């Protein structure tokens, strides 16, 4: 839990079915708690972006993207409902913020992921480049 990044963290809100059992009043309450949470974090400079996502979507795969499937998005535990981009310095702080998510008591889950400054591909290419230079 000591992963540090200067690039911040992405919170990915998982689960699009947890609010099914709520009454309209409860939904309104959680929605306004969520918005207040987002606004407070924005005011504190800890959130730089965030959005809910529409349920509809497509999955593109296969060579030349020839497979375009609907989905995923029957309501499910894994489906992504939205995200925040956090500007904080440590995974611990990002996790502490995730723990404040108003959806948690109802079954929402929050994935916390460090943002990288270079893609994994470049990371893979790096050591071999250095090796090549050393042997050259």
């Amino acid at each position, binding site marked *: 839990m000591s992963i540090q990044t200067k690039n911040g963290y992405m919170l990915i809100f998982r689960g699009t079915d947890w609010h099914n059992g709520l009454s309209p009043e409860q939904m309104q309450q959680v929605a306004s708690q969520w918005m207040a949470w987002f606004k407070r974090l924005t005011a504190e400079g800890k959130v*730089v972006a965030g959005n809910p996502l529409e349920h509809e979507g497509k999955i593109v795969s296969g060579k030349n993207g020839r497979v375009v499937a609907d989905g995923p998005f029957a309501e499910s535990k894994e489906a992504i409902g939205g995200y925040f981009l956090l500007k904080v310095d440590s995974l611990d702080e990002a996790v502490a913020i995730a723990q404040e998510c108003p959806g948690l008591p109802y079954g929402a889950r929050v994935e916390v992921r460090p943002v990288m400054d270079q893609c994994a591909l470049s990371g893979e290419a790096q050591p071999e480049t250095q090796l090549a230079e050393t042997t050259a």
Partner: protein
Amino acid sequence: MNGPLKSGYLLLFRSDEWYKELSHDELQKLISQNNAWIERLMTQGKARTGQPLARQGAVVSGKNGSRISDGPFAESKEVIGGYLMLDVETFEEAVAIARTSPNLAYGTSIEVRPLTDECPLDACERQLAQEGQLATAAA
């Protein structure tokens, strides 16, 4: 950033660590293809921002976030390895852009999702309220 964006599309790149199997030359080639792809979209004003994500982290769940499970998520094909925010008008264009990603050939899949500025809970609540009115009207 004063609130959620009203429009745009989010591309989520999912894959396992297929790139570990590539040769150095293949990697270099793919890196330049990816850089060129993103630079072109940025220049055209079609991509707003994008970042890779580390295959580490945590998942928080349970009341008060009491359950914390650590990543990494290395094994799974479902892991999100990065995102790209698109600034285009239609879902079709977002899908068309996703289909040109150089990584698809290697087994990456790309989830295309419209951004919204309305909380799904609000939408859900409104629908319930409408159904309630209908039920009352029918009674």
